[in-house]
């Protein structure tokens, strides 16, 4: 399904000193730092898998999701997903995937959710019967019916995230990227989101790659984790093994220890 081989990406970041003088100087003379966001990242994910992608802030999680979803072009390496090079055949490729950024919305702010859904149906050219089927299923499993006709801006964060995830599945993608889907959610909403991801994965063999800082997400959804730090894949394997090895009982402690071990 997903295969990355030696993917690398370096960003040029403008360096700027403190104060007005430095700001003025930067107008004429720019200094750049090179930040190695991804450093020969390789892994593969099979169809129907759920993979937890973890690592501290700035480790390269979002950058790799952007590469895999075709937003960014990597500097080196190969990335093949469902037979596509994501950034080359962008339009054909993105039709097959769903992407949720927990901190950004893909829905229209001022109109009822259902209107956004219908525009998405048209953007993805989803045939009406398929759309109706998906909408029915998503409305039931995500419990959306109470607020389908409410504008996005009036929804709670939990309702919004459910609507976001539903929106990304209306066109029946085979692969779903979730970038921090539970960020800021209260406990019932978190449980609902997790329950839904499990259910949809079991029913449709949807492949899911999710990033999160909440290790309970991982615990509830999958045993396979990818640990990334400073742009490198540090660990690719079973979460249960790490738990056993550390002997800690609380998942947060396990992860904190893991980060310490790799000096992240």
């Amino acid at each position, binding site marked *: 399904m997903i295969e990355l081989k030696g993917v690398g990406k370096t960003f040029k970041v403008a360096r700027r000193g403190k104060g007005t003088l430095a700001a003025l100087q930067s107008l004429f003379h720019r200094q750049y730092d090179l930040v190695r966001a991804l450093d020969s990242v390789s892994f593969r994910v099979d169809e129907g898998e759920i993979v937890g992608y973890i690592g501290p802030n*700035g480790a390269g999680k979002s950058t790799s999701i952007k590469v895999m979803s075709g937003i960014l072009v990597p500097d080196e390496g190969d990335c093949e997903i469902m037979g596509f090079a994501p950034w080359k055949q962008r339009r054909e490729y*993105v039709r097959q995937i769903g992407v949720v*950024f927990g901190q950004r919305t893909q829905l229209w702010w*001022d*109109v009822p959710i259902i209107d956004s859904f219908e525009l998405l149906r048209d*953007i993805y050219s989803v045939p009406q019967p398929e759309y109706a089927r998906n909408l029915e299923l998503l409305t039931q499993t995500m419990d959306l019916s109470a607020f389908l006709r409410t504008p996005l801006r009036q929804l709670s964060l939990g309702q919004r995230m459910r609507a976001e995830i539903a929106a990304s599945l209306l066109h029946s993608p085979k692969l779903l990227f979730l970038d921090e889907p539970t960020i800021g959610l209260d406990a019932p909403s978190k449980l609902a989101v997790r329950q839904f991801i499990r259910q949809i994965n079991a029913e449709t063999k949807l492949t899911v790659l999710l990033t999160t800082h909440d290790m309970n997400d991982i615990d509830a959804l999958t045993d396979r984790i990818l640990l990334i730090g400073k742009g490198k894949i540090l660990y690719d394997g079973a979460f249960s093994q790490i738990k056993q090895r550390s002997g800690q009982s609380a998942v947060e402690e396990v992860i904190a220890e893991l980060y310490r071990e790799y000096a992240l």
Partner: protein
Amino acid sequence: MIYFKYLRMVVKSMLQYRANLVLLTIGQLLSVAGYFAGIALLFARFGSLDGWSFGEVALCFGVVTAAWSLTECFARGFDVFQSTVRRGEFDRVLLRPRGTILQILGGNFEFTRLAKLLWAFAVLGVGVTQSGVEWSALRGLTLALMVLSGFLIFSGVFILGASVCFWTVEGLEFINIFTDGGRELAAYPLTIYTRWIRRFFTFILPFGCFNYLPLLYVTGRSANGLYALTPLFALAFLLPCLLMWRSGVRHYQSTGN
């Protein structure tokens, strides 16, 4: 067509803020009214401008204003593209299986600018009746072509400006020299300007091609029918703009979270 579905979405969103809509529209109406009144006063004092009568300048001004308001309304997405990139919203554009230009055009309309269009038509009406032009079908057609061509050329400039955002999102104010500055300049017949300005706005930024040159034909200053066709040059101008956009999209670096 998907473009109109986008359009419907923007209208729906806008109707959520009715008072805002009304106030903005009134503001637009007043701004053009004041500006044109200024020109009318100048002519009341001086009679003509380098051999161009008030009615003829009204034609010039009307064409530019009509083209500009159409551009501000329909190509608004490129005008505000800097903030789209800053907020990282271009990511979402790339995630949808549609062309980037279509999505940027469809994502943003500023209907309040159509108030300006009404004014532009009123001014054009003044020009048509006061300029003393003997109207023929061909001359009328040329006038319509001028507005359309101006719309395409201004849109091209907006696209160029937006493309620069792919490389840097700082110091983009200089683009306004060409958009706002060019618009002000083109509101009068180019003949009143010095030679290098005329050349620049004919061959580099072809604003002259959609008003000054075809007006030579429309007002009967030149019998050469080729002048009536200069608005078509807009199509040639759009091509490099679109190429610039394409290479910009490839260069897109996104922003962190």
